[in-house]
């Protein structure tokens, strides 16, 4: 009988702690599939963020380190400079990358560090209880924007990818999502492209994945995916931003 479904070798056979409908599980798996396809599981060192995905090392079957909140690209820089032939990537949420780690992501990109960054943007701080993030949409209610996010008080959604695009050291930027099978497929393609560029020593690249957080969006998993398709991508358009 033909096997129709299997877990990637790079993925541990365990249940994740993620909420129903969360995007992290899908994105974790995409990364593992790409690593398997590139045959680099034994030459990979990943850096997990502080946030919901801090436990990524419980799910990935390759070497994984943990960084202080936002310092993820700095830790990856240290790893990559010492071991330039390993596949080194960071996996960061929007709190980690777009708030406390803004300096690190910009300067790591500006140095053109030959690493990959997987930037999972769900517009809230999931781990700590759904607080407002720099990426939260205007009008969105969160634990710390209870009167909704207002431009005049809380500023505008921060578009890190567009900011990174002006840096000459950055070779590839693409924004993807996981709200439909087609988008999941595209996200995987982008992750693979980023990893391949790194293996070819082309420089810094980053893939943003717009991901649902049904728990703190107060929506069902299905409606959360719909919200990305109908609302979030208007603020964060999908596609290649720089190549």
């Amino acid at each position, binding site marked *: 009988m033909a096997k129709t479904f299997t877990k990637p070798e790079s993925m541990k056979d365990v249940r994740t702690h993620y909420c129903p409908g969360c995007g992290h599980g899908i994105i974790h798996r995409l990364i593992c599939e790409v690593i398997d396809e590139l045959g680099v*599981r*034994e*030459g*990979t*060192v990943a*850096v*997990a963020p502080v946030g919901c995905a*801090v*436990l990524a*090392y419980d799910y*990935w*079957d*390759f*070497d*994984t*380190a*943990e*960084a*202080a909140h936002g*310092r993820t690209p*700095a*830790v*990856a*820089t*240290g*790893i*990559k*400079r*010492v*071991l330039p032939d*390993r596949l080194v990537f960071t996996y960061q949420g929007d709190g980690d990358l777009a708030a406390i780690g803004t*300096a*690190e992501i*910009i*300067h790591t990109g500006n*140095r053109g560090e030959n690493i990959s960054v997987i930037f999972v943007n769900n517009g809230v701080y999931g781990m700590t209880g759904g607080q407002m993030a720099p990426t939260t949409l205007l009008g969105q209610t969160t634990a710390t924007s209870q009167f909704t996010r207002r431009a005049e008080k809380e500023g505008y959604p921060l578009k890190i990818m567009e900011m990174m695009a002006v840096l000459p050291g950055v070779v590839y930027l693409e924004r993807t999502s996981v709200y439909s099978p087609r988008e999941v497929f595209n996200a995987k393609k982008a992750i693979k492209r980023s990893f391949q560029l790194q293996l070819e020593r082309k420089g810094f690249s980053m893939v943003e994945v717009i991901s649902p957080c049904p728990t703190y969006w107060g929506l069902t998993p299905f409606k959360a995916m719909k919200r990305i398709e109908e609302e979030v991508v208007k603020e964060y358009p999908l596609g290649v931003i720089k190549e």
Partner: protein
Amino acid sequence: MFNMMKYLSTGNEACGEGAVRAGCRFYAGYPITPQNELTAYMSRRMEEEGGTFIQAESELAAVSMVFGASLVGAWAMTSSSSPGISLKQEGISYLVGAELPAVIVNVMRGGPGLGNIAPAQGDYFQSTKGGGHGDYHIIVTAPASVQEMFDFTYDAFCLADKYRVPVMILADGMLGQMMEPLEFDENIKPCPVIPKPWALTGAKGREAQSIKSLLLGTGKTSLEEHNKKLQKKYKEIEDKEVSVEMYKVDDAEKIVVAYGSTSRITRACVERLRKTGEKVGLVRPMALWPFPYKEIRKLAEKGLKFLVVEMSAGQMVEDVRLAVQDDRMVSFYGRMGGGVPTEAAILEKIKEL
């Protein structure tokens, strides 16, 4: 084969060369006075030795780069001065939690806040009592000359690797910037290489590994068990790594306790008083953590009087009091905010004992 070479060097550069000779091949730093000569020196030497030099975007990033380099097995160092070290405390706590070796140099300046750029010893508490969040210690050594800036930095790499702990060189602006003769063997060998099976080099031929400081488990994998393991290690360090110079203490009736630059001035006072027949000795901790409690206690048991001299409002004096266990026997003299004690002032305080 010894091939002793003599140089005229600043303390900061001697520190850098000590690191290079120990085998350091990764340095990340950020400019701050009075340690800039060290960062500049490493930018050249790392390149010459085929290592990595990164001028980071902040002290936070610099120490995290060191964290990254260390977790894949490299000998790594960062340096700064007081305000920058406050920022590095985040990374130091993470290094401790993940049991990673690293060397951190603090060329202290006056504080609090931005303070000034004059030499000071106001970071003693921060360095020896943990510094960042959580229950921990790091090894802290205190050089008192350009030669010791080299020697202690060299030793720091060996110690860091041996115990898988961060080691801090606690110097000050005077030690960092003054020039003195520096002598070392050109053929000096790097620190012994200790295998690092824990390093994340890719899961080739072994199970995948992770390096982390988040411990949410229970029982044997609990954070409390991890802390017990750390405390056991600290006990071993306390037993084995106390380092103190006892200068003319055998017949002494009065003891001065000082470290770093202050010990230089204090030593001159001891010499001067000895010439007039006064029995004064110097206790100079060369390691500040672990602190030489037992050694000082032994002197206290002889009923001696102590004067502690620091460039602070009185920080190490608390450890001396803990050792002596009789506050009436311990006096203190200190200058703050970049003030340096004069010989005359110290002599007067010794006479008052």
